[in-house]
């Protein structure tokens, strides 16, 4: 997929994933890179930016298997932004799908 296109969608992806439950960084990276290829290192700057914009709060939590992990928790403001992004995305993706279907007829 076009690399520049992907970056804009990544914000939506991490918000969607954290809306389900609190996630730690590696988990988010895994969930996304399982579905499409990304330079995994650039997820962390994105998470930092969204946290500084108030869309996430973070906390440290001990884990069974090893060292403590930093968890990302979506805030109310984050939920609002997520809903806006999802609406926008569905409109966009729906439009593209319609065109593809019309084109292939």
């Amino acid at each position, binding site marked *: 997929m076009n690399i*520049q296109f992907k*970056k804009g969608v990544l914000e939506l992806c991490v918000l969607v994933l954290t809306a389900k439950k609190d996630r730690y960084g*590696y988990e988010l990276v895994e969930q996304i890179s399982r579905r499409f290829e990304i330079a995994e290192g*650039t997820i*962390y*700057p994105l998470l930092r930016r969204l946290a500084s914009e108030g869309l996430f709060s973070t906390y440290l939590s001990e884990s069974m298997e090893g060292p403590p992990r930093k968890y990302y928790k979506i805030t109310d403001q984050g939920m609002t932004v997520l809903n806006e992004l999802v609406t926008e995305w569905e409109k966009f993706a729906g439009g593209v799908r319609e065109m593809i279907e019309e084109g292939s007829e």
Partner: protein
Amino acid sequence: MNKDLYLSELYKYLKRLPPDERDEIMTDYAEHFEQAELNGRSEKEVIQRLGSPRLVAREVLAQTQIKKAGKSPSLSSVTRAVMATVSLGLFNLIVVLLPFVASLLLFVGVYGVAFFLIISPILLFIQNPLVSIFINEFFLMVGCVGIGLMLVIGSMKMTSVYYKFVIRYLRYNLSLIGRI
């Protein structure tokens, strides 16, 4: 390259950041390596998937410079933010650097014109040091100086609006453009 080398290189590229911020970022990546190891990934594989330390650092630095410029907008902070954003991709030479340089030149031009209008009485005097001509052209001179001053004041007001606009554009750009 192994994990330690990767982290030390990243640290080196982030040297310019405030220590607490840099340490936080380093912790994130160290944690990434730890978690990946727990999941059975080799260091080599993790490094390959992370992307080069330079790429990661560019992304971080662009973000920090834009944030800094937003807090205290000035010609130098905004220029630094623009340069950091341009480093993210060739495409940004065209959509960021070019418009920025062009608009700066426009500002320089307006300030230049204003400067000449303001010093125009002096220029006239140098060219023709006769008091009678000076009196004849008095109102013209007052007009020129007035317009010059208005241009300076207007441009100064425009400058702060312009900085805000540039910073907003950079933020938008950062959220879309760059290798990922």
